[in-house]
């Protein structure tokens, strides 16, 4: 039974940034930001944590609100910005995003957006401000809002009814930026689904993401790869009759791909898959084993290596499973960095109220008291809907599980655990170096340039095996491998 520790802070920006990154990852969609100067620029800088960032983010139209827009309301400034944006920036669809000040002041963003829509401009809005939570929550909210309102555009140029190709599957829960490999992951998932004879809306990286948003309602199935994909899938269920299949993790390696295929077949029926699905799977199996075979000779040297994973739950659960089952790793520690991206503020106040520490929380000392009480107070549902699948959760895979995103705390946890290899984000690299452990960049923020890299599917599994084994060997001190392994593992 894993020892589970709880923490609070998320790693990876605010809800507004999550929404901005999501919108910016959809081709033909342009964000119009109603916030003070700096919100978008900060989002642009932080997006570099995804390996390379989004050059286009730096050109995001924004109202750059100032004090007078807070005191008197910023509605007219937003109206002006929408008018100029649709004139100057060529885009199929525009979405207004709201910063914290505008949310607090209560600008009528919905009403102003509706005015633009009534003037036949394709403009929607999503009221997700930074203060609403973390970036993954921002992804979930903005995507749900877009899926829920894109139907309002019917009749406008480019949004004629039934335009575009019907797809079988919507893919949700792979979050742009906070999954630095989201592009590569989605392309690999698309390749797998296509191999199984299914077409898919992946939204990000698609040639026309806006068209995929419009078509999402017609899909037979929404495939949800993390808890952040639930909200968009549920939004579609409000007006569409489609199945939802939630997985506990991204599929890494052949076994996971096969399990995914079986789950889809169970939901939609075997006949929904293409005729070539079985042969595709068989070729995946053969290719994976042929590519991994040479490593088997060395597995004896690395089996039982204590490994620590730091990252978002869905991603590291898939990695942990493959590392343990195929490469013999011992998952000694998992640190989940996306446990509490939504509603932090309210959870915190609830804890303070329960403990009658309201007055204490008004002081720095009181804040420490509250923080200390957070540990173990609330367990986040790691695996909603687990009853309908047999996947192992990270709590079952890892000997010790922490849920927190605070850098100093993670550093302390890693130092105490003394793993042989750390799979995590850039801040964890320095800790790994100090420990003399190997390091592999798998989560946000990325310490490397990432374009299409992925650790998902067949290609991802092989890439993971290559990098992981290399790091284990480096860390082991090749000459005294078994002695070092014993020492570090103790």
């Amino acid at each position, binding site marked *: 039974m894993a020892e589970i520790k709880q923490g609070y802070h998320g790693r990876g920006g605010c809800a507004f940034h999550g929404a901005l990154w999501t919108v910016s990852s959809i081709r033909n969609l342009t964000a119009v930001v109603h916030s003070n100067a700096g919100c978008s620029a900060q989002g642009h800088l932080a997006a570099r944590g995804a390996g390379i960032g989004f050059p286009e983010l730096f050109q995001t139209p924004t109202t750059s609100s100032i004090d007078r827009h807070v*005191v008197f309301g910023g509605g007219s400034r937003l109206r002006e910005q929408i008018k100029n944006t649709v004139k100057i920036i060529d885009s199929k669809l525009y979405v207004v995003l709201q910063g914290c000040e505008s949310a607090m002041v209560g600008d009528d963003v919905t009403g102003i957006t509706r005015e633009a829509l009534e003037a036949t401009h394709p403009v929607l809005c999503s009221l997700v401000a930074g203060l609403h939570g973390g970036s993954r929550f921002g992804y979930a909210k903005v995507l749900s809002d877009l899926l829920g309102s894109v139907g309002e555009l019917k009749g406008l140029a480019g949004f004629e009814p039934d335009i575009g190709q019907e797809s079988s599957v919507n893919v949700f829960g792979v979050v742009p930026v906070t999954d630095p490999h989201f592009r590569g992951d989605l392309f690999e998932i698309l390749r797998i689904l296509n191999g199984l004879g299914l077409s898919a809306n992946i939204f990000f990286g698609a040639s026309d993401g806006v068209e995929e948003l419009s078509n999402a309602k017609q899909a037979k199935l929404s495939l949800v790869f993390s808890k952040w994909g639930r909200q968009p899938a549920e939004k579609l269920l409000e007006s569409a009759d489609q199945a939802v299949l939630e997985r506990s993790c991204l599929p890494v390696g052949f076994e996971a791909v096969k399990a995914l295929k079986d789950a889809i077949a169970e939901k939609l029926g075997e006949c929904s898959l293409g005729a070539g699905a079985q042969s595709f799977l068989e070729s995946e199996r053969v290719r994976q084993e042929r590519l991994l075979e040479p490593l088997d000779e060395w597995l004896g040297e690395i089996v039982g290596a204590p490994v620590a994973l730091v990252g978002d739950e869905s991603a590291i659960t898939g990695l942990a499973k493959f590392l343990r089952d195929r490469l013999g790793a011992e998952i000694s520690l998992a640190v989940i960095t996306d446990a509490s991206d939504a509603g932090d503020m309210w959870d915190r106040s609830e804890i303070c109220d329960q403990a009658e520490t309201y007055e204490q929380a008004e002081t720095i000392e009181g804040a420490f008291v509250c923080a200390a009480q957070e540990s173990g107070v609330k367990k986040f549902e790691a695996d909603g809907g687990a009853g309908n699948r047999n996947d192992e959760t990270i709590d079952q895979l890892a000997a010790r599980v922490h849920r927190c995103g605070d850098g100093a705390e993670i550093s302390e946890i890693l130092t105490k655990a003394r793993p042989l290899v750390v799979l995590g984000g850039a801040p964890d690299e320095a800790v790994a170096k100090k420990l003399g452990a190997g390091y592999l960049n798998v989560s946000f923020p990325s310490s490397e340039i990432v374009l299409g890299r992925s650790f998902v599917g067949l290609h991802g599994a092989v890439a993971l095996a290559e990098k992981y084994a290399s790091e284990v060997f480096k860390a082991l001190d090749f000459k005294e491998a078994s002695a070092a392994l014993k020492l570090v593992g103790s």
Partner: protein
Amino acid sequence: MTSRKSIHVSIYGKGGIGKSTTTANISAALAVSGAKVVQIGCDPKSDSTNTLRGNRHLPTVLDSMREGKKVKLEDISVVGFAGVLCVESGGPVPGVGCAGRGINAAVTLLKELKLFEEFKPDFVLYDVLGDVVCGGFAVPIRDGITDRAYVVTSADFMALYAANNLFKAINKYAPTGGAKLGGIIANRLVAGYSLSIIEDFAQKTGVKILGQVPRSISVSRAELYGKTVIEDEPDGEQADVYRLVAQRLAENQDLVIPNPIGTNDLRSWARDWGDRLYAQEIGLVEEMAAI
């Protein structure tokens, strides 16, 4: 009644309780006694100084800021009765923007315009909107702008509730340099028990009552004429009442940090008073029941 160093006073209280009337009469009384006085209305309704300036038009600070022109002191102030300088912060259009932030911005502008250096007042009275609904309305007591606050209240529960909220704000900010409480101004006293209720509340929260202002038709009449009682009926009893309150306010150096009552305790305290009034109404004879 002059002083070399300005005394900055903020006056709070539930909306409609008579805050502006009381503040304007205190300003008028202080001015008549020879002090240089500024009254700043910190309420989006911008009607705090109406009776000091005979209902004459006065552009608010925020209206002037909204127009985007360079604001000058003379654009946003007018000299009223007995030389009281009147200023209204104003606010955004109802339902739009943030009035709390507006008050903050208006007060900041007044400081930038060097109002106090230019006018050299003995007293500056800030008449602040009703309840302390958010941080913006706590600006006058929070940022070292005033060093003392007074609360105007009647014996009505909701007025005392608002006063208690102000006490919470003072209790929070006073230890870090915010204003302390000068006392309660008991207003609109009618029934015999009104003062008893306020006295009990004051005793429980550890504050004193600076003055007692009975309900009077003189106040209503003066307001209809666009005047303070001090101007309209300077020899009347009500004018004497306001003069006494003004004198005590000017001389008061006994500033305290109040002990606000917890919300549930305040409710049960109110219920107890309800029971006592009911007992009095039905003529219940009981030991210790005297009011």
